[in-house]
Every structure is written in structure tokens, then in C-alpha cells.
């Protein structure tokens, strides 16, 4: 496996979706290639950072506003 081939498999490797044979070839290449090790490490850091993002905050009163909007649209007006 060369550097270019390795780059194609990085997501599958990160997601543990690579077959064992390709996985072994990739790991052998990374042991020998500092650039690919650094590239994979930064690729993994990128994904990990995004996975750690907290949900976007929402003001508490927003739920009541949404429920009230939906009632207005979906329920018949009260007499």
C-alpha cells in the first residue's frame, strides 16, 4: 500500500469498517511512514472534535413558543 491508497481508506479505518487484510496493510504502511501517521492522527483529531460538539443552545422559552405555534396551526380554535 502506498500513501495515496492509504488516504482512500482512512474513513473506513477510523470507523473500524476495514477488512482485516487491508487493515494490516494500512497499519504496516503507517508504521513505516511518518507523514501518513501524522496525517491519520490529524484526520482522527478532526472527526473527534466534531463528535464532541455540544448541541446548539436554545432559550428555555423556545419550547413553549413552538408548542403554542403548533397548537395554533393544528388544533381547532377554542370556542
Amino acid at each position: 500500500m502506498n500513501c495515496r491508497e492509504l488516504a482512500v481508506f482512512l474513513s473506513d479505518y477510523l470507523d473500524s469498517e476495514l477488512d482485516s487484510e487491508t487493515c494490516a496493510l494500512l497499519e504496516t504502511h503507517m508504521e513505516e511512514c511518518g507523514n501518513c501517521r501524522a496525517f491519520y492522527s490529524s484526520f482522527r483529531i478532526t472527526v473527534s472534535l466534531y463528535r464532541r460538539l455540544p448541541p446548539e443552545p436554545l432559550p428555555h422559552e423556545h419550547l413553549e413558543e413552538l408548542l403554542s405555534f403548533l397548537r395554533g396551526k393544528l388544533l381547532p380554535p377554542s370556542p
Partner: protein
Amino acid sequence: MRRESENERDLELVHKARNGDYTAFEELVRRYQPRIFSHCYRMLKNYQDAQDCLQETFLKAYEKLDTFREESSFSVWLYKVATNNCLMRIRKNQSHPEEIHIEDILPRHRHDDLSFEVPDWGADPEKIAINGELRALMDSSVLKLPEDYRAAFLLRDVEGFSTKDTAHILGLTDANVKSRLHRARLALRKQIAPYFSPAAGKEEGK
């Protein structure tokens, strides 16, 4: 296990809502409002648009509840409604600006060209604090992704859906989702690289 019991509870509420129990529908709204808002906001990066999309999503969900055939979880079905709303809104607003192609933001170097050294970002990912500067860079980088790549990335890596569920939400094959996800990750890595190594942008922009 938790997700399974959540799915079961969702289905209970869906069945009740279909039988005219409006409070059951409201419980579904309460359960999903923060997640769906967060997803819409990340897709659109505009508070008002995200709020409008959230409202449209639950309106449509109520009106189309009978079309939910339970082939997927309710969560997947609801995210499909929300994501489609976001994509339609983005495309509607996109009549004027130039279209962004993923190739424009993918690394331009050939990875087998070893004439440059890939900088080591060093840190253990779990120990990196997401401060304001990094957060702003991460947010703007996601926004630079073309919307179909952005949706695949957000659903898989931020919302945590499986490839299969993401494919169902986006109406794509598993292979297409994987390909978009991989290219989105490469593009994002390139976009945030200057934060970790100021030289990275220059070297990898070759």
C-alpha cells in the same frame, strides 16, 4: 438498550398521536425539539431560518404521521423531514451565489507527494479544549461544505446516525454516504489545520 427503549416510547407516542391524542404528539415535540433545532441550526447557521425549519418540521411531521411506516425508527423519519426542509431552504436561497464544489475545498496536494512534511498536531483529541476560536473555525468550515456533504457529515459524525440510517435520511446508497463523509472529513481537516499548525495551510495548499 437506551436507544431501543427510546424507540419503543416514540412508537407508543406515535400510535397515540395517530389516534387523535394531541398530548402524545406534544411529548414527541418536547423529546426532539432540542436535537432537531441543533441539527437545523448547524445546517443553516441562521437562528431565524433554523427556528422556521423546526416549526415546518413538526407541522409536516404531524400532517404526515400516517405516512410513517415504521420501516425506520421515528427518529430517522423525523430527521429525514428536518433535513429535507433544510436542504430545500438552502437551495431556494442559493439562486444567486456561486455554487461551491467539494473539489474547491479538498486538499490539493497529492498524498503520495512527500516533498512536504505533514505537521504533527500532537495533542490527544480528548484533551483539546474547544475554545471560541476553534469553535468558530469548526463552524465556518462546516458551512463551507456543499450542503449535501454537510448533511451527510452532520448526520453521521455529529448526530451519530449509522451509515444505513444516514443513507435512508438522505435517500442515498450506503456507498454514496461513505464517499461523501470521507471527502467532507478530508475537507474539514484541511480547513481546521491552520489552528493546529499555521504552516499547514501553506504546505497542503500546494
